[in-house]
């Protein structure tokens, strides 16, 4: 039963620097896995600096869930095990070999395998962490039977990569991945596609899934929005979700018998001279991609998109779940009477700026300035304009701030992730760090419920 859904609340941020649809292969040379990408994971390291690893060799596992392993995306030498304050593991970096070697996990057809065998293969190869769950947005628990699995076939974040381009020609692997996922749930595998664009045949020809059509602005592409509209999560229920490239990696595991972490990522942002797509591997350093390709001046490198990504440095590594790099100008400047000027040419969701003068199709170079000081919550009714969930966002945020567990549960904390609040944070007049607050609430809830 395919569903058609139109999202009305929300908006697209018209950032400049969209990636041109050409794919360039780059051998990054250095790759890293960063435990910080995995919420709630306490890493126990299995390798030493100088060890030789193959693609698929275990690097560390989660102390609390020992069967969840994290493996090397490429073959090479463990170069550095970098720790930060209080010996927190920051990243394990690998210097790649010229000729890739893979751990052999054996080819198989998932339709003829049992659920246990599939789970075992996914866990062993380190592919399992791609599968995440709501509530809490953490790596899925293999023992759960999720009521549904959601795959969002498009991304509506600013400058987000075009999934149709990314999956091109990988229909077989995508289908195999779905077949494997289908075995993991007694419910439905949902594949959600965008109404306004023509999806790649890889998506539209997919079998074993329920295809739903979603229309509307960001956050229409967020899996949280889609779950809320299609099959909302109630207390005690679990939904798993992953992205198309991650499904393909699962497919390759069965078709090729190895952890082939090849990735296509979009290099975007107003400060990139030639924004385009890059074929590389999971966890690649951005050093080679931005060489001679960035504007002069102070810039910020972001693994992911401008709303939810993580700041990295110019030799930093792309995050485990990211298929985008965004480079924006830093905004550490003073603007004289900036709040009082008419503000022609400034993009704002608010009608207190003359946006209508700028034309509909203008793209904007936005920087990282806060554009104002932190204040108390005063304005109301604005968050609701960009939040399509059937949830009262301000009330939920306040219940998190006072750590009222009962209230958080009643107001729908199980259905949300911090990324669902990114637009609210963007438009917030009080300049509150709302995604951080929501993450704290989710973590608190998870601790209480375990």
């Amino acid at each position: 039963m395919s569903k058609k859904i139109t999202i009305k609340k929300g908006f697209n941020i018209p950032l400049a620097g969209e990636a041109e649809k050409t794919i360039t292969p780059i051998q990054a040379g250095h790759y890293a896995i960063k435990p910080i990408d995995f919420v709630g994971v306490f890493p126990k390291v299995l390798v030493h600096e100088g060890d030789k690893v193959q693609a698929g060799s275990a690097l560390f596992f989660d102390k609390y869930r020992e069967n969840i392993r994290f493996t090397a995306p490429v073959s090479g030498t463990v170069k550095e095990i970098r720790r930060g304050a209080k010996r927190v593991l920051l990243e394990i970096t690998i210097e790649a070999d010229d000729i890739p070697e893979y751990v052999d996990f054996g080819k198989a057809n998932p339709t003829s395998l049992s659920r246990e065998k599939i789970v075992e293969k996914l866990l062993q190869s380190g592919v399992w962490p791609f599968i995440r769950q709501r509530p809490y947005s953490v790596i899925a628990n293999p023992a759960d039977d999720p009521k549904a699995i959601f795959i969002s076939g498009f991304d509506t974040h600013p400058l987000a990569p075009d999934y149709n381009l990314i999956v091109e020609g990988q229909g077989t692997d995508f289908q195999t991945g779905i077949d494997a996922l289908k075995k993991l749930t007694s419910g439905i595998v949902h594949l959600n596609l965008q109404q306004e664009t023509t999806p790649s045949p890889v998506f539209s020809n997919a079998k074993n899934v329920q295809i739903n059509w979603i229309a509307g602005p960001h956050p229409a592409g967020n899996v949280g929005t889609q779950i809320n509209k299609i099959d909302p999560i109630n207390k005690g229920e679990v939904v798993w979700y992953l992205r198309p490239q991650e499904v393909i990696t699962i497919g390759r595991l069965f078709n090729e018998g190895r952890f082939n972490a090849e990735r296509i990522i979009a290099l975007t942002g107003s400060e990139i001279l030639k924004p385009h797509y890059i074929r590389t591997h999971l966890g690649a350093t951005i050093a080679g991609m931005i060489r001679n390709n960035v504007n002069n001046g102070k810039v910020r490198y972001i693994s992911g998109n401008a709303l939810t990504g993580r700041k990295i440095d110019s030799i930093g590594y792309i995050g485990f779940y990211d298929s985008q790099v965004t480079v924006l100008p830093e905004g550490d400047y003073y603007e004289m009477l900036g709040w009082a000027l008419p503000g022609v040419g400034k993009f704002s969701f608010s009608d207190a700026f003359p946006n209508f003068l700028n034309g509909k199709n203008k793209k904007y170079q936005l920087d990282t300035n806060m554009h104002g000081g932190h204040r108390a919550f005063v304005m109301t009714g604005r968050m609701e304009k960009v939040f399509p969930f059937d949830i009262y966002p301000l009330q939920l945020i306040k219940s998190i701030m006072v750590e009222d567990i009962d209230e958080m549960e009643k107001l729908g904390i199980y259905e949300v992730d911090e990324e669902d609040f990114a637009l609210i944070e963007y438009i917030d007049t009080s300049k509150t760090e709302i995604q951080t607050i929501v993450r704290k609430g989710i973590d608190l809830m998870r601790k209480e419920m375990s």
Partner: protein
Amino acid sequence: MNGLRKFIDNIKPQFEKGGRFSYLQSTFDAFETFLFVPNHTTRLGSHIRDYIDMKRTMSFVVIALIPTLLFGMWNVGYQHFLSMGESVTLWENFWFGFVKVLPIVVVSYGVGLGIEFIFAQIRGHEVNEGFLVSGMLIPLVLPPDVPLWMVAVATAFAVIIGKEVFGGTGMNILNPALTARAFLFFAYPQDMSGDKVWIAEHGDAMSGATPLGNLLTHQPLTTSASDMFWGFIPGSIGETSTFLILLGALFLIVTGVGSWRIIVSVFAGGFGLAAFFWAIAPYVAPDNAYMALQPWYHLIMGGFAFGAVYMATDPVTAAQTNRGKWIYGVLIGVMAVLIRVLNPAYPEGMMLAILLLNVFAPLIDHYVVEGNIKKRLKRIPVKA
């Protein structure tokens, strides 16, 4: 501009922790951020942020109030000379009012901001911009002849007891400007009601009562509806011109700063009940002049329009959910007319109606949110 920036950067360390004037840090910050949007960059969460901030939001409300302030100044002079039986030029009218009103505005801002700065410093907070609006609203809801010391006392009461004891901007329950007015109304009724106070330095050529007050004493309504709509009537400084208030409302709605839901629903609620009373008046209470009033008169008399547009919409003290805003607005309109009609000892019902609903707004929100919670619970499939 660069020179100014350099100067500020030079003196800044003295106001920071350990500096000579560190006890003025909040004050310094307020002035610095007034001149320059700070260079703070995003740390966590979204890397980009909207240009909208509290300063712009609040200053837009002040802009929306300026026409009523300027007209109010002129009208203070106009009513004064009218009561003296004199006719003078537009500028003489305005100048008289300007000299009357400006000190009230200055006292309101001076006292209010002074207290705000002190509290911000004690709490180690940045100064919130909320009082920029309250400080403008207070003079506009007072009679032109109000003594300045009363303005000072009322403002201090409103900011300290009405706002800061609850934790400051964003935490208060009652609208600060109305708290100031209510304080004066109950503490010094002789200076806040009756027919002596609404015209500055009242002459004897005409009565000084407002149209609302006229009705109270069973005098026929002599003021035309058009005078009431355009604002050529005695009253609080900013409340008389419904036209300019609606202009301000339009500005607030178009820029998204004021809630159209509240503005529309207050007018709808007030009009609805007034129409009902008007229809039944001949049968139930033929001598109640307020009840027999045609319903649109209620909307252009007294502080109804001013309250609906500038007071009821205060986002902190209003209902916060969209559905709650409709209920809250309608009830304000209903209560205001109810108080006017059924408690004629007190003709201006708007102030009390808004303060009352300020108190009930959290309850309204509670039930709206409770509805959402129940919906969520119902979704859970019944386990067989």
